[in-house]
């Protein structure tokens, strides 16, 4: 029988969707039976008390968790988030219920052995509740006590060669897509870049000194499977700057509805959508209308292609990404606490992704942005908010990047241009004699 009555939570299980309440009840039962003979290092009924405190919060309409704490592992300023219950007598199992963030492997490649070892540690030293994966992208371990934190950190680092992730005013755990390890669309090796920057910026990841959180995310192509453009302060999206490669024979196979050439690589084959129509499904949906199909030949005006990936996704056997590959860097995406939600703004249209020189073109941009944000950013101000406050032009100045057409989202609405003295030939001083030759008093 459950330790606490939870009528309000039980209602959440009645809907059509999988419920976290059911998961928690299952975990509470597993811990109560303990058939695996785990030597629990935190209260065995922690999950039951978690359900209890949540039920009480629903009943009262207010939280019973305190805000933050000083817990952490020695030498690190992130990776552990202190959580304490303000009703410890009613729910002693969750008096301390700290969160730990664990850096996920690049591309989220796991072995079953890795997962078993991780969950074994967590079943013994924590609640056993995980969140795979949190919004930041990392492995979230929910609920342990202060004395267990160093123990868990020791086991992760010594037995699993596994580091903690980022939290607080740190660089957060960088997250990436599968990239070229499995995907033919990858324009750069997102796993390699993510791994390099994670190692290169260990200090920023573990020792907080930023005004607020800062996130890197890596998408190896514009399909943006990681949604880096919306989820990270600095987003690295693969792109190319030459032409899309076209196999005209394969294009015609799609047009002829050859069974071996299903549109969208067969992703929508569960329903009869009618015969493939290249005009309607590809050309008509091209955002810049830069394609045409005439006399059985597909032509693309690549100068006007924005690399949206739609045509490549639809006819993957006929169209391939170009060969001159790199990535675009976008900055300033964030969730809507201040100024509303923002998508990333394009800062660097194309940069080479070169591991031979330790990605120096990319790290130069990162460090210029950080220097500016650390100096000018207000407390708890995200990069995107600083860009809004001081202007994109200021960002271009501090990064030493010249304004380019790709930076323009839409034509300006303000007719005034405020020049700086260094931008005007001759500055603010002028030769009056020369001026009067052409203009009378």
């Amino acid at each position, binding site marked *: 029988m459950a330790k606490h009555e939870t009528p309000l939570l039980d209602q959440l299980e009645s809907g059509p969707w999988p419920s976290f309440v059911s998961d928690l009840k299952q975990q509470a039962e597993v811990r109560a039976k303990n058939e695996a003979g785990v030597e629990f290092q935190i209260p065995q009924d922690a999950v039951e008390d978690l359900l209890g405190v949540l039920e009480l919060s629903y009943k009262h309409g207010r939280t019973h968790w305190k805000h933050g704490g000083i817990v952490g592992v020695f030498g690190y300023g992130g990776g552990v988030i202190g959580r304490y219950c303000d009703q410890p007598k009613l729910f002693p199992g969750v008096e301390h219920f700290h969160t730990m963030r664990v850096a996920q492997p690049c591309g989220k490649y796991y072995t079953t052995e890795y997962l078993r070892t991780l969950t074994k540690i967590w079943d013994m030293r924590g609640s056993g509740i995980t969140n795979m994966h949190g919004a930041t992208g990392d492995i979230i371990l929910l609920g342990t006590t202060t004395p267990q934190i160093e123990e868990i950190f020791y086991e992760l680092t010594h037995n699993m060669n596994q580091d903690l992730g980022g939290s607080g*005013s740190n660089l957060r755990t960088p997250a990436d897509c599968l990239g070229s390890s499995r995907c033919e669309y990858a324009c750069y090796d997102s796993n390699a870049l993510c791994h390099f920057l994670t190692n290169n910026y260990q200090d920023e990841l573990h020792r907080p000194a930023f005004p607020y959180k800062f996130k890197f995310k890596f998408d190896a192509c514009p399909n943006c499977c990681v949604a880096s453009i919306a989820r990270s302060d600095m987003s690295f999206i693969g792109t190319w700057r030459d032409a899309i490669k076209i196999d005209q024979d394969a294009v015609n196979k799609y047009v002829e509805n050859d069974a071996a050439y299903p549109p969208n690589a067969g992703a929508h084959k569960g329903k009869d959508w009618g015969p493939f129509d290249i005009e309607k499904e590809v050309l008509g949906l091209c955002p810049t209308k830069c394609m045409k199909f005439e006399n059985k030949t597909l032509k693309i005006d690549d100068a006007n292609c924005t690399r949206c990936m739609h045509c490549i996704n639809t006819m993957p056997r006929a169209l391939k990404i170009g060969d001159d590959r790199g990535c675009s860097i976008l900055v300033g995406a964030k969730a809507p606490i201040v100024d509303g939600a923002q998508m990333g703004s394009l800062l660097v249209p194309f940069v080479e992704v070169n591991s031979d020189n330790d990605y120096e073109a990319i790290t130069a941009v990162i460090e210029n942005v950080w220097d500016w944000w650390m100096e000018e950013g207000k407390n708890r101000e995200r990069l995107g908010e600083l860009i809004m406050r001081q202007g994109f032009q200021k960002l271009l100045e501090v990064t030493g990047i010249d304004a380019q057409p790709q930076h323009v989202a839409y034509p300006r609405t303000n007719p005034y241009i405020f020049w700086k003295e260094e931008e005007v030939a001759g500055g603010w001083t002028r030769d009056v004699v020369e001026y009067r030759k052409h203009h009378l008093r």
Partner: protein
Amino acid sequence: MSELLSNKEAATQAVVDFMTKKSKTKSKFYFNDFQDIFPDDKLRDIKKVVNLLVTDGVLEYWSSGSTTMYGLKGGGKQHSSEGEA
């Protein structure tokens, strides 16, 4: 790096004095607040020294999960709410 920041003992004392002086009104400080103590130094240099003070047990981190602040070790309300008193 300024003379004050490069002298660890003097830097430590300056940080402790600064925080103690303000302790009646606040016990947790944003990282940017250290710039008031070391106005001539770059934040990256200040960071190195401040984090050493955490390692040495002079300061401690406080984190809400989204934001990190610094305080004198043992100071402030949060500490007493973590089972010590």
